[in-house]
């Protein structure tokens, strides 16, 4: 992983009238990493992304990209897939892409060549001269993805890139993301899907009410929580989990049950209780807590504070 920073955000604040959308937020996003920007709805994620994109200017603080303060030319070096998708619906697919690539400073000839490559890679070649409105939602999404990456931006911002895609297409997009990362691109991923974050992100920042509540390398964050979670598969009466001074939280997923222990809770006590009640244990595994639980704890914890 590159040690230099692709994006450095220093103490930015953004106010809309009385609402503090982003409050003294600092981020350091390493070059060549996949960075997860997480947070509940209305936490200030989109506002933060818009400031990195130079759509908005922070009231206070500074943002640097690739060692430079943001200027018009840094805009050409970012690719953006917004959460709210949108294309000119009455233009032809290739024309839309040519226009958007042009706005990113790409010459028409070079843009045309790359667009054709991308359309082929995403299996859209036969739709090249159709109007955008004739495409399915998933296809439109792929076209929009091409618009985000066609100018080979060193920094790519993807806001919920997988919504609306079937597993096959989601897989294709994921592979492309990993490819881009391997070639040195930095990806900022904003999503509510924690399992995607766990699989793809190197570092994360969790923001709530405009402030960072958790940030750092994902593996280090999870390690800091320790293996305080038991993943169980069992047959029989669930009453053995009914131990309030041992168990902090229980998550039923159907086949699998996840039990989070209290800070000094011993997992062996659960095993003993199960055996005592004649419950059959098929799986008993000590794991780090899933990001989902960390997210909920941090966000609801902050709400109570």
């Amino acid at each position, binding site marked *: 992983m590159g040690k230099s920073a692709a994006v450095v955000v220093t103490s930015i604040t953004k106010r809309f*009238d009385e609402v503090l959308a982003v409050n003294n937020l600092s981020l350091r996003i390493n070059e060549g990493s996949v960075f997860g920007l997480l947070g509940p709805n209305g936490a200030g994620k989109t506002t933060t992304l818009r400031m990195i994109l130079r*759509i*908005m200017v922070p009231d206070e603080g500074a943002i640097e990209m690739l060692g430079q303060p943001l200027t018009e030319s840094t805009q050409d070096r970012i690719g953006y897939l917004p959460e709210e998708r949108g294309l000119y*619906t009455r233009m032809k697919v290739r024309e839309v892409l040519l226009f958007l690539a042009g*706005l990113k400073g790409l010459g028409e000839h070079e843009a045309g060549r790359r667009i054709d490559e991308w359309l082929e890679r995403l299996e859209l070649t036969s739709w090249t001269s159709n109007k955008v409105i004739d495409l399915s939602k998933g296809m439109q999404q792929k076209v929009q993805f091409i618009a985000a990456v066609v100018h080979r931006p060193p920094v790519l911002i993807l806001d919920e890139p997988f919504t609306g895609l079937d597993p096959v297409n989601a897989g294709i997009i994921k592979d492309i993301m990993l490819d881009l990362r391997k070639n040195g691109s930095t990806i900022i991923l904003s999503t509510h899907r924690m399992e995607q974050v766990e699989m793809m992100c190197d570092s994360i920042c969790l923001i709530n009410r405009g402030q960072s509540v958790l940030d750092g390398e994902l593996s280090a964050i999870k390690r800091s929580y320790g293996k305080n979670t038991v993943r169980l598969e069992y047959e029989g009466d669930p009453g053995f989990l009914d131990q309030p001074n041992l168990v902090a939280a229980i998550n039923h997923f159907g086949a699998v049950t996840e039990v989070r222990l209290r800070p000094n809770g011993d997992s062996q006590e659960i095993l003993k209780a199960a055996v005592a009640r004649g419950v059959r244990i098929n799986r008993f595994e000590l794991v780090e807590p899933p990001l989902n639980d960390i997210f909920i704890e941090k966000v609801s914890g902050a709400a109570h504070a």
Partner: protein
Amino acid sequence: MHKLWLVIKREYLTRVRTRGFIVSTIIVPVLTVGVLVLQIVTASRQVGHTLRIVVLDEAGGLGSAVVKGLSAKLPSGEQEFQVVQTLENPPADAEDSLRAQVLRGEIDAFLVLPASVANGKASAEFHTRNPGQVIISSELNHSVSDAVIAQRLHARGVDVKDVAQVVKGVDLKVIKVGTRGDSEEKGQTIALAVVVGMLLYVTLIIYGVATMRAVMEEKTTRVIEILVASARPFYLLAGKILGVAAVGLTQYAIWVTAGALVTAYGATVASMLHAGALPSLHLSWPMLACTMIFFLMGYLLYASLYAAVGAMVSNDQEAQQAQMPITLLIVAAVVLFNVILRDPNSPLSTGLSMIPFFAPILMLLRIALQTPPLWQIALCLGILGLTTAGIVFLAARVYRVGILMYGKRPSLAELVKWVKYT
């Protein structure tokens, strides 16, 4: 700047290629020419047929004089009136039986000349089922009046022919005095002024609203989010306004060319249809230049306002409401046409034409009617230019914030805040 060019190009090309543009570009001149041809054709072949009438002469002696005067002809060359019968001193029930005949369609109408019509104490009456044709034709009225006047003069011993000589009216020709020579005025100056004024009015509204819709399209389809991440909002706004303007100018160029062809060949066509010369409106080069300048300034002013409205609303209904004040400003200028037409150089006309929101239309109207002092045109352009610059600046600020705001339409206080945002 290259990005600005790309935005203009996209706006222009996608608009020019739409079916709407092609249809409106073709339909408008075709309709105009069509109406013109229709007028020529109907003027030469007017519908209408000879009216069969009966004259009831209760005064006695008037009837034949009236009938002699009824020499009007239809455009087809036939007599307009055919007098079936003239009844002097008719029986009391004559009117009733004639009414029945009219209802049965045996005759078209009957004219009653009461005994006291000669001393002006009663009116002549024309009874018909279809009054339209008579109202258009003043012939009947004239011949009845002439006959009555002649009879009165005769009763006073005056020779009718002498009187006709004495009371013959004088034609009044209106000559327009201009710096480049005088020309006989047959209403073409006013016609030209009104045509140019109306043209500006229609264009400002059509292309202003088109700009508003273009802004809304990008906002509602959410393309705007990618656009503002790629180019300065001011370029996006300017690109929209200039792109739509280019579309408008293209359309006008096509129409003007078509118009020139129609004027060139129109005379031939008209003579083939045995009609008189076409009414010709000559647009001089200075006038054309003024039209272009005022159109461009007015368009910039109003398109910026419309674009700001497009940026601040989220749907069509809101847009309808929010654009009303702007459209009303343009309509107001047209309502004020009369003030200018009555006296283009009155203090009121001068004052109104200096108000920047009316200036593009009203000053142009004044120039077309009677060129105002040069300092007034210069002052007007100065005020208009400054206002336009100010409006463009404000519109850009509203646009920049508005395009990213969804939800309810902002209040005036919120708009002021938007303008102040950094």
